[in-house]
């Protein structure tokens, strides 16, 4: 289980190859990339700045990956999340999960994204044509996370 919080961009192809490298038990790799869109709530976005809580962020992501590992029969997970100022088209986050069979990889990947969205200490501030504003948390993200609870 690997977790990285960084300002630098990442190479998805290389990361996925690395994650499954030399392990012939891996039959499935499910992955998710989150990207900066140029439009949010009808406003044109020019930059997106991600603030985080450094002492807590990696610990929180690792705890989410560990929960996924305890819940599904998966082999490995990777979470990369960028911080700092980004532009539309930029990559924000990569979550990837390897497993023998596809269901576990898909479920764990979605689970990690849903928990990351609601539990990991990141906050987005947008610069739009209407000025600077903090992005509001979405009720749909809370309900996406709650569906995994017993």
């Amino acid at each position: 289980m690997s977790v990285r919080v960084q300002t630098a961009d990442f190479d998805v192809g290389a990361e996925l190859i690395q994650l499954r490298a030399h392990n012939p038990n891996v039959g499935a790799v499910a992955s998710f990339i989150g990207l900066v869109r140029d439009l949010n709530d009808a406003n044109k976005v020019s930059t997106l700045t991600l603030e985080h809580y450094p002492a807590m962020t990696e610990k929180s992501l690792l705890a989410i990956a560990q929960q996924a590992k305890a819940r599904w029969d998966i082999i490995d997970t990777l979470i990369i999340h960028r911080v700092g100022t980004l532009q539309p088209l930029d990559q924000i986050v990569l979550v990837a999960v390897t497993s023998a069979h596809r269901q576990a990889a898909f479920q764990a990947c979605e689970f990690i994204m849903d928990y990351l969205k609601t539990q990991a200490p990141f906050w987005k501030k947008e610069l739009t044509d209407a000025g600077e504003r903090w992005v509001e948390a979405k009720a749909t993200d809370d309900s996406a996370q709650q569906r995994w609870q017993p």
Partner: protein
Amino acid sequence: MQIKVLYFARIKEAVNYSSEEIDLPADISSVTSLKNWLALRGDTWANLFSGKQVVRAAINHELVDDMAVIHANDEVAFFPPVTGG
């Protein structure tokens, strides 16, 4: 008791600093009582901490709910609902 308090995102901007050391009165020992106590600092603080806004808390880098107990030397963080990913 002595604790460290951190503020993030819109809360940090509102209170205008990111961390402080606080020597808590003896009767302040939960997140709820700390929020209520901070709300007494004035309008900005009352607006943030009297329950009108959702303010999440972490103690020692773990998300907690408002019932959580605070101990000496804890690092308590306050922030809005997270919006990463």
